């Protein structure tokens, strides 16, 4: 027998290989998400319920003509052991990019991905409606004192956590106190709630309680702020101040937010890391607009989202630049499903005014005038964004349609450079950008080429990873000479762009720009109660800034989404706001 051992081994090896090949082949036969197409799916197991109902004009025609009826259509009533009855919406996770949200803890929400879930699962005293106006949420109404420094909120009596416990003023207080607690380690709460009296004292460990938050009775809470800022309600609408359940937070689950007990229109029922997050509608939701879709599956991974959308596995998809030409073509069937949404974001090329040669405004302007933004947008960005003419993006209140933007004028640029103090002695420029590839992005390369051609500037590109890049530009003394960066609005107020990015000494003033006239205008505007006047003042500042060109605004962002025609009421807001409750499925 022993002589045969080797032979037996080989036979076993071959058998195993055979089994592997058979398994693969078998799997391929079983899989077929597209009823009516020539593929596997012999056993009629579509991966999703709604596919059985999906209208399929072309496919049905094909299957009726040449081929047998596909098994799927006959055998599968709209029920499946993986999903319960009711209507199901399948969306790409988060902001459409997929991936797990870093947290579902409202107090720690510092990124868009997390916020998209948190606004649906939890709610705050106030929120935004579809038109980005502040509306009551957990608070029914509120009073503002005459000096604008004391807000008294009356809570709704019918609001409940998902587990049925009514929401009280004590819950609101607990949530805000928790955001201030240094142990919560929130990096965002001071930004949104730092204006509350005593908030920073607790945050820095000088006090154990926030003195400006007082519970009047079970359904009334009073909040005092330091100065009468006009955007306080808008900051309360940010997830940082959303209400959490004390018993949930202290449940001992590690971390607690994996099983969140919120108050929002949707509840989290399942979270398979890297795979999917499943939300179900909160039948007891107190709001006027009740959620309609029973179950929302947010797919976190799963390969090309575009492919899955076209295959019918997803009901909406965010279009990437790779597919932009195809879907923008009016003859393409997908074009009818396309929605283009302006975003509240602007991308900038930043000139560090503290570094040679950008300490001379003429050099900055010459650089800005040598860049053909239109061509850049048409060729490199495939017209996905819009060419920027100013700092505030188009969809923003305070956008100035009269601005022409810095013109593309190579001759004028040369003249300016010749007049500057670096005439004939322009130093080499290092452009820092985020990246890890062998070559920099094509936008960076295109701009560097334009600068070389029009000004003879010698530009070398230095790529760094995001973490390193951040540690550079978040310092008080930025070492980068020239770099590119995008900014998205946190709240809908011109201050978020003009004030934060260009006020001398502001933390996000990357260019180091410090113009006393601009500073004065910004300071005036930030306390101006009249909205129209505020906007005018910010616009004046914006014009002055553009003349000095500490940055070159390149483009205003736009998002491209495809949505299946049976999904109604969907919209893609430029800020993260509650939106799932507006969606219905009509098949």
């Amino acid at each position, binding site marked *: 027998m022993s*002589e045969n051992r*080797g*032979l037996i081994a*080989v036979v076993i*090896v*071959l058998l*195993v*290989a055979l*089994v*592997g*090949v058979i*398994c*693969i082949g078998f*799997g*391929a036969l079983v*899989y*077929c*998400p597209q009823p*009516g*197409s*020539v593929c*596997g799916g012999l056993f009629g197991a579509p991966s999703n319920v709604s596919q059985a109902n999906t209208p399929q004009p*072309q*496919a049905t025609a094909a299957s009726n*003509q*040449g081929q047998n009826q596909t098994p799927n259509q006959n055998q599968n009533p709209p029920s499946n052991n993986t999903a319960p009855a009711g209507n199901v919406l399948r969306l790409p996770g988060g902001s459409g990019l*997929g991936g*797990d949200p*870093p*947290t579902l*803890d409202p107090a*720690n929400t*510092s990124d868009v991905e997390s916020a998209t879930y948190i606004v649906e699962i939890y709610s705050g005293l106030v929120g935004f409606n579809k038109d980005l106006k502040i509306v009551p949420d957990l608070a029914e109404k509120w009073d503002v004192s005459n000096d604008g420094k004391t807000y008294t909120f009356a809570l709704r009596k019918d609001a409940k956590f998902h587990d049925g416990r009514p929401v009280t003023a004590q819950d609101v207080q607990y949530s805000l106190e928790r955001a201030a607690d*240094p142990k919560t*380690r929130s*990096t*965002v709460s*001071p*930004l949104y709630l730092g204006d509350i009296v005593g908030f920073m004292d607790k945050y820095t460990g000088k006090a154990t309680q926030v003195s400006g938050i007082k519970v009047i009775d079970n359904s009334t809470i009073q909040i005092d702020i330091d100065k009468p800022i006009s955007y306080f309600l808008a900051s309360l609408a940010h997830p940082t101040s959303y209400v959490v359940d004390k018993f949930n937070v202290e449940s001992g689950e*590690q*971390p607690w937010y*994996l099983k969140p007990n919120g108050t929002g229109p949707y509840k989290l029922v399942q979270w398979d*890391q*890297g795979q999917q997050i499943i939300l179900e509608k909160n039948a007891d939701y107190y709001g006027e607009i009740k959620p309609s879709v029973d179950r929302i599956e947010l797919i976190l991974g*799963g*390969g*090309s989202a575009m*492919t*899955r959308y076209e*295959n019918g596995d997803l009901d909406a998809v965010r279009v990437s630049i790779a597919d932009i030409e195809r879907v923008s073509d009016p003859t393409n069937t997908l074009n009818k499903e396309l929605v283009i949404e302006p975003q509240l974001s602007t991308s900038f090329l930043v000139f560090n005014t503290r570094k040679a040669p950008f300490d001379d405004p003429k050099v900055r302007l010459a650089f800005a005038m040598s860049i053909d933004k239109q061509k850049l947008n048409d060729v490199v960005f495939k017209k996905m964004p819009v060419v920027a003419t100013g700092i505030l993006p188009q969809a923003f209140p305070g956008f100035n349609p009269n601005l022409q933007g810095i013109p593309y004028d190579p001759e004028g640029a040369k003249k300016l450079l010749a007049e500057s103090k670096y005439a004939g002695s322009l130093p080499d420029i290092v452009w820092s950008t985020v990246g890890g590839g062998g070559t920099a992005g094509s936008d960076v390369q295109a701009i560097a080429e334009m600068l070389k051609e029009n000004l003879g500037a010698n530009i070398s590109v230095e790529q760094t*990873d*995001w*973490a*390193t890049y*951040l*540690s550079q530009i*978040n310092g008080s003394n930025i070492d980068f000479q020239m770099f590119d*960066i995008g*900014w998205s609005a946190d709240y809908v107020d011109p201050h978020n762009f003009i004030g934060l990015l260009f006020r001398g000494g502001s933390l*996000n003033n990357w260019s180091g720009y410090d113009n006393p006239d601009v500073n004065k205008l910004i300071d005036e505007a930030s306390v101006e109660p009249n909205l129209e006047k505020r906007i005018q003042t910010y616009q004046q500042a914006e014009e002055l800034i553009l003349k000095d060109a500490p940055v070159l605004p390149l483009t205003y962002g736009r998002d491209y989404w495809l949505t299946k025609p049976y999904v109604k009421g969907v919209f893609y807001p430029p800020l993260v706001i509650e939106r799932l409750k507006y969606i219905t499925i009509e098949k």
Partner: protein
Amino acid sequence: MLAYIVQRLIWLPVLLILISLVTFALGLYGPGDPVQVMMGLHTNPQIVEQVRQEYGFDQPFLVQYWNYITNALQGNFGYSLVKYQGQRVSDLIAKRLPITLQLNLVAILWSVPLGIALGIFAALKRKSWLDVFVRGVVILGISLPVIGLMPVLDFALSRKHELGALVIGPFLPPGGWRGIFAPHIIQPAFILGLGLLAVYTRQTRAAMIEVMSADYVRTARAKGLKEWMVVMRHALRNAWIPLITIIGFTLAGLFAGSFLVEQFYSIPGIGALAYESLLSKEYYVIMAFTLIAATVYVIINLIIDIAYAFVDPRIRYK
């Protein structure tokens, strides 16, 4: 033998301490900071400092290292700071490691046996059409870049193609993870196995050709043994030695080898986790990952060495 194993294992903790020291230092002193990554552009040095203090990042290096090690010895490998805030590193790895292991297991199961079998046949039928064919497959398998092959396969198999009224496909899902028995595993496992198939075929063929021309094979044939007996008993046994080395490293590579594929097919395995963590300065996840990888490599190396002794009686350890 036992003494040898014990001696090798004693070195493991020493190695782990050295590796962890270096990784820890690189994490703390390298550029970038998890708190800043968390805040993104909303920086405020005062807040960064405050939060760093809460995390204890302001303490001296050795204190932090000591805390880490003592916690790790009690099974607490720290928490994710940025990408999965507050989740235990051990939980994260426990969720993802099985996925990577399953994916690689399937890849190995189809490719390694097939590769060995093909290699044997190619060596026995040298210069025949089979050999030419197998060598062609091998060259393709080694030279085709996975990064280029994945989108092509994805296009061919995972998309719906409309040719007039005829709709073809999709035959396979474009990615994602639904467990080891779902068709989602087919594409990534196929891609992963392709490289292994090529390597194993080539190694087996080379090893077999070498031993087939050895004196003892000629002797065996001269004794009048049947050809398959010569191959199985005399040739293959000796060809195992180089194969064991690559099998060992294939197993060790289970932990890292599937990173590209995981990324492309959005499979939430450990490779994807490691990559994310590196980019967002997740000190603790990177530490855990490095320590696991080091342990696995040491142990696999040991197993390879021991396996040699079993296959080749001439190799004995004291």
